[in-house]
């Protein structure tokens, strides 16, 4: 890997903050450049024992690309996604993200406020489990991010939410019910709808199809395909290796080489 | 030696003009100066023992004694009346200890001491009105702690006083305070005007005379200097109102423009007299208010 300073051909039209001068060396054109990313958990309750989760992970994601992460169980695939989302604090390495309006930033070190701003306007995350909110029905749960992040009125947001839930096969009679009472598969589909409804620019998928049946998986896959057509870049971890091969452009292997 | 002679001899060299010794007068005057400088603010002072029980006007008496000059003409009233026992006793006290002239005519007086009324006749810039105050703290109704009420005054934190009035209006449709109506003085301190009726409150506003308030038992002195704003607490949609005597008049002088006392006659009927007896007498003697 080269660390030679680049010439005048900077990829960034916008100004890069001084603390992120490393951005200069990011590969031209990539949306996400992950370099030597390591994460070690330190468990104080067990006398400070250290558990390495990932070590020296490097890969790139191009704009509009769908990159899948593969690897044995426990290799740290989810850890990579969570480091990108800053749910985990990386121990070392860098995650250079080419944002829409703020130039290229290192998601490992950029200020919390910036991360929150990216999460609000650019980066979405689909987790394995739905986070229910008390007293909020399924349709409103999905409508909320549409309304808040895209600035549309409540009626429009609810209509869009309804069509999304329709596509994912949630029965209409459940729209106003509280998702806490739903089955695992239904909850997961509501979760996906909520996460993608506002069409984030970069979507991180952490086993979004784990608890879904075949038909629902197809609906979700179709939804992802449409998001990509609209320009979304995605990085995902999937339970099913065959599905991973089928829907991603490229697979990056995490953990020891086979 | 007879007891009387002994008393005269003992008393003679010590008795000073207007009873109080110079130290006590100085203390009161110092408090008065501060009170005038901060209108409506209660100045603590060392209230002295008087030959009268606390709660019988000792605060007002100490102020008067500290201010008296030999050429003063003094009027003392008790709820408007020059002839009540308390007023008469106090007048005699001033006569004996200061040798000042006593009058019942408000216009002639240089100093008026009063309990619970302000004379009907407007006071001039040559006159001082001394009011006797039983409870100087206007906020006591809403806050029992002295430390807290002092803090509230210091920070002009009067929301609870206002809330008290708000609750009255919500519950009873009007403010129920008939006397001791709280007022904002000079746009700053909320002050208890002593137990004068609402009728008298407007007389405090932008007056020509100096008003001095003395609470002997509570050891507080406060003041309203001449030409000071005194505004009763009121809401834009619930204005302060004085007592309504429309359709009633004084049975002695016929006045329809004064504060009237309601008198129950032996036969059960009601009649009304002027509360300000000096004013009533003057009218009966043919004097016309201008």
């Amino acid at each position, binding site marked *: 890997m080269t660390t030679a300073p680049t010439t005048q051909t900077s990829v960034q039209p916008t100004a890069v903050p001084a603390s992120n001068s490393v951005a200069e060396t990011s590969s031209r054109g990539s949306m996400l450049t992950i370099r030597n990313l390591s994460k070690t958990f330190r468990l104080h309750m067990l006398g400070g024992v250290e558990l390495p989760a990932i070590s020296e992970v490097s890969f790139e994601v191009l704009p509009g690309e769908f990159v899948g992460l593969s690897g044995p169980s426990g290799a740290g695939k989810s850890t990579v996604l969570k480091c990108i989302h800053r749910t985990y604090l990386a121990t070392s390495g860098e995650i250079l993200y080419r944002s829409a309006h703020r130039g290229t930033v290192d998601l490992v070190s950029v200020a919390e406020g910036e991360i929150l701003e990216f999460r609000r306007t650019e980066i979405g995350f689909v987790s394995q489990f739905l986070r229910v*909110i008390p007293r909020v029905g399924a349709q409103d749960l999905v409508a909320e991010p549409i309304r808040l992040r895209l600035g549309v009125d409540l009626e429009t947001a609810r209509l869009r939410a309804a069509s999304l839930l329709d596509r994912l096969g949630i029965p209409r009679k459940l729209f106003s019910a509280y998702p806490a009472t739903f089955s695992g598969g239904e909850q997961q589909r509501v979760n996906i709808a909520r996460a993608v409804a506002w069409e984030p620019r970069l979507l991180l998928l952490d086993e979004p199809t784990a608890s879904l049946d075949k038909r629902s998986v197809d609906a979700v896959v179709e939804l992802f395909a449409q998001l990509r057509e609209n320009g979304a870049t995605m990085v995902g971890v999937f339970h099913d290796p065959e599905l991973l091969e089928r829907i991603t452009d490229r697979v990056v292997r995490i953990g020891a080489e086979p | 030696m007879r007891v009387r002679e002994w008393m005269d001899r003992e008393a003679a060299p010590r008795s000073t003009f207007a009873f109080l010794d110079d130290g006590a007068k100085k203390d009161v005057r110092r408090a008065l100066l501060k009170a005038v400088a901060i209108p409506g603010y209660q100045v603590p002072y060392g209230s002295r023992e008087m030959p009268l029980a606390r709660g019988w006007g000792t605060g007002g008496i100490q102020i008067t004694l500290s201010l008296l000059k030999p050429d003063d003409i003094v009027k003392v009233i008790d709820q408007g009346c020059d002839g009540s026992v308390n007023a008469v006793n106090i007048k005699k006290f001033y006569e004996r200890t200061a040798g000042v002239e006593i009058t019942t005519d408000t216009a002639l007086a240089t100093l008026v001491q009063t309990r619970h009324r302000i004379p009907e006749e407007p006071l001039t810039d040559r006159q001082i009105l001394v009011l006797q105050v039983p409870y100087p703290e206007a906020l006591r109704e809403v806050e029992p702690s002295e430390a807290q009420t002092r803090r509230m005054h210091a920070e002009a*934190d009067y929301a609870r006083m206002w809330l008290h009035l708000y609750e009255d209006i*919500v*519950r009873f449709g009007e403010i129920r305070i008939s006397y001791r109506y709280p007022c904002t003085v000079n746009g700053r301190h909320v002050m208890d005007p002593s137990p004068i009726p609402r009728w008298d409150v407007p007389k405090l506003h932008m007056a020509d005379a100096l008003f001095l308030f003395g609470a002997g038992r509570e050891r507080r002195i406060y003041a309203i200097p001449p030409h000071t704003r005194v505004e009763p607490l009121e809401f834009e949609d619930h204005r302060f109102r004085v007592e309504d005597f429309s359709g009633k008049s004084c049975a002695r002088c016929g006045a329809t423009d004064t504060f009237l006392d309601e008198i129950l006659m032996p036969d059960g009927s009601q009649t009304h007299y002027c509360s300000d007896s000096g004013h009533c007498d003057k009218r009966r003697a043919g004097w016309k208010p201008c």
Partner: protein
Amino acid sequence: MEALLRAHGITRRYGPGCALCLDSTGADAGTNRCPTCGSVWACRDVSLELRAEEALGIVGESGSGKSTLVKLLHFDDPATSGYLELARLRQLEGIGGIYADGCDWSRDLFSMDRYRQRRVRDASMGIVYQHPHLGLRMGVSSGGNVAERLLSAGWRSIGAMRQRASHLLERTEIPLSRMDEPPRNFSGGMQQRVQIAKALSGDPPILLLDEVSTGLDLSVQARVLDMIRTLREELRLSMVVVSHDLGVIHLLCQRTMVMKNGQVVESGLTDQILQDPQHGYTQLLVASQLQ
């Protein structure tokens, strides 16, 4: 999102303090009380920043100093040292001496006189305490409770105040037929909702919530939290949320500070605090959570 409030080095000490205090109290020492002089360091060197329309969580066990911190921010209690500043707010423009010319930030509010502090507080903050009796006058009507802050801010029209109070009580789901009843007659959940209405009466940009749902039944708690979420969004509120309940923090807050024995041991994005806690105490806290 621009910063709205910032505080630096906030400290609250009860007691004389001594040379040994700093070494023998705090998160690492496991106590906030100095064994030598007996001083209690309820809050020690806490710095924070609250952005517009952001909710900042403060978690910790009882005695960690989290409630003291909001009381200091609300001027309920004077800070021993530290600074508090507010960004230029339209609500504070009528109060003299708050902003120096050309400055985007106020002067230090902790060193201002109590009169100004109260005016700043009335204009910019609302607070909801865990115990309704701290925030409400139990013998005064609910409408009167809401009106108190308005009166403090100089409102002098009964009609306008009643209109505002009924609007807020309606928003917090208190039946208007009970507007003139004192909160003493109400259930705990209802009292809490009257408190919220009172806190919002002056239309403040900042809302401080101190254990707002603690001690309520689960269904009542859900109702109160849902109401806070809705109001926050509609009124574009910034909030400081104190709770020992990580679920409440997770639901409401984007960022979180963890306190122990008066000190901040860790702060970060809420999901990071919950999923990748760095400090031993936070790890213990997260591991102790009911799922």
